[in-house]
């Protein structure tokens, strides 16, 4: 018998919405009272993947790609139109308490805590909801408070905290019961760079310490680069790529970036597109296929030092994939 090791699996899951549509104006509104027309929106269309225990996977896609809808199906909030999701051996839509006890869903920029009370009170409610033994609860709570450096904030009403501080509280609340599976939907959205880094570090620590499985959506590629070795890319509700982050860059990056220091003043435009020039350090963007040849020419013809060749920044690659796929209107 084959052994199941996948913690999260999606087997051709789809979510379609029937949406009423009409033209603008009174006449169209009156007509729609008697004859309604509907469009079927395929928010998610036959997506399949599986995630092993302890993996941190980035779930990428432009707005409206179907990321959040997929997360909601996996966490049991939405019933799939077709297909079979499975998480920790459970069918999520059945919302078995044993399943809910082991997962969490964090949605960035959304506060689910009691607005008028200090976070400590919300933590207590969370303890009661999940039946966490008192000693274990206090140990976990104090540990999280220390790591996120929020000891002075947990006694303040939530309404008096900044967005970043509130997000830290949300994450502590969501993880107090030590879930095995984390669905994180843009947990760092709207936060400053320092706060984003703190939250990333915290998620990484949690993953390492508890071996939790994490499925993360984020528009900040820094989150993905720091946390995820593997990414799943979807677009228009369909799976575009599932593999290592480095494979994604290799497959979709048409350019390489060559950086070097030089004291020469000759025209470097002949080697590629000069995208940066500062304090004697030059950055060139060259077609991937020509990178080796250009590097050899630079070393032979120019006085260059400290030369590096790298893939294009991930933001550029992702942006290119999405814009290319939008233009094509469908998968390649």
């Amino acid at each position, binding site marked *: 018998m084959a052994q199941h090791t996948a913690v999260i699996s999606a087997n051709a899951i789809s979510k379609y*919405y029937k949406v009423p549509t009409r033209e603008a104006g009174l006449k169209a509104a009156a007509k729609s009272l008697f004859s309604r027309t509907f469009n079927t929106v395929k928010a998610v269309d036959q997506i399949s993947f599986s995630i092993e225990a302890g993996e941190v996977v980035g779930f990428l896609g432009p707005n409206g790609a179907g990321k959040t809808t997929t997360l*909601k199906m996996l*966490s*049991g*909030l*939405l*019933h799939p139109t077709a297909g079979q999701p499975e998480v920790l051996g459970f069918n999520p839509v059945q*919302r078995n*308490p*044993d399943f*809910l*006890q082991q*997962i*969490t*869903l964090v*949605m960035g920029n*959304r506060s*689910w805590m*009691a607005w*008028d*009370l200090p976070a400590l*009170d*919300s933590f*207590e*409610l969370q*303890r*009661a*909801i*999940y*039946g966490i033994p008192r000693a274990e609860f206090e140990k976990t709570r104090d540990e999280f408070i220390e790591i996120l450096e929020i000891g002075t904030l947990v006694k303040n009403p939530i309404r008096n905290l900044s967005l970043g501080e509130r997000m830290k509280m949300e994450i502590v609340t969501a993880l107090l019961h030590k879930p095995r599976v984390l669905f994180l939907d843009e947990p760092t959205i709207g936060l400053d760079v320092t706060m984003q880094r703190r939250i990333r570090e915290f998620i990484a620590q949690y993953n390492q310490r508890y071996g939790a499985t994490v499925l993360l959506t984020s528009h900040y590629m820094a989150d993905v680069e720091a946390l995820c070795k593997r990414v799943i890319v979807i677009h228009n509700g369909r799976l575009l790529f599932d593999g290592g982050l480095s494979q994604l860059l290799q497959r979709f990056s048409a350019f390489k970036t060559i950086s070097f220091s030089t004291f020469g003043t000759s025209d470097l435009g002949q080697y590629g597109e000069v995208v940066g020039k500062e304090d004697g350090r030059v950055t060139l963007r060259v077609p991937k296929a020509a990178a080796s040849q250009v590097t050899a020419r630079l070393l032979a013809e120019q006085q260059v030092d400290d030369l590096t060749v790298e893939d294009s920044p991930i933001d550029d690659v992702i942006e290119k994939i999405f814009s290319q796929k939008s233009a094509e209107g469908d998968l390649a």
Partner: protein
Amino acid sequence: MRRHVGFYLAAMKMSILEQFQYRAQNYFYMIGMIAEPIIYLVVWSSVANQQGGSVGGYTAGTFAAYYIVWTLVRNMNIVFTPYGWEWRLQHGRLSAELMRPIHPIHNDVAYFAGWKVVVIVLWLPLAAVLALIFKPSLNPTWLQLVVFFFAIWGAYLIRTMFLSLLGMIAFWTTRVGAIYELYFALELILSGRLVPMTLMPAWVQRVALFLPFQSAFYFPINALVGQLGPVELLSGLGLQLVWILVGVGLVNIVWSRGIKRFSAVGN
């Protein structure tokens, strides 16, 4: 079961803490609410006085008792409304509640139960002032006091269940305000809120027997103010229990169908 008890205690405590944050607002809200029963009281007391001292067995004193107790029962009747259901669906609050290993209805019941504790504490001085002004005729027995205590909580649960049922229509229609207004009109007439049920036409009283409204309003008031014997008091509580169970059953059926319709778009 043990977890549910722990959850109820914690959620009620949270609610009490929240309500005490806005104690002045709560008090002004309660004071504002007494306008309605005071109008009823003044009108019916005048009618009673003009008709030789009583109407349908109610004197000015018993009307005063009825409408002063009314103020507490009305406050116990405030539950999570269908408007609240609209809001929780549209703003994503239900998504958060669905992620917990406890049914969202438990959260509603526990949260408002905590609020009721604050309401009862705040109501006592208000009732004392009203009693000084309107001089109610109220001489309950110990059994009436005990039954009244359980009946106000029974009323709370009945109304919670039936308004949750209405609220869940939002799974299909997104908005349920208009249906709630219709329900509210029926409730006003058939619950004893407008006037004691015995003063209503006989056919209205017969119709009301088959609906849950008076178990959530008239019975708790009458349990304290009326001349009910032990059998009537206990059978009234029994009927409340029946309506609670009917409500729980219907909530479960509608919930299991409605939750499949939950789209959680954008939240």
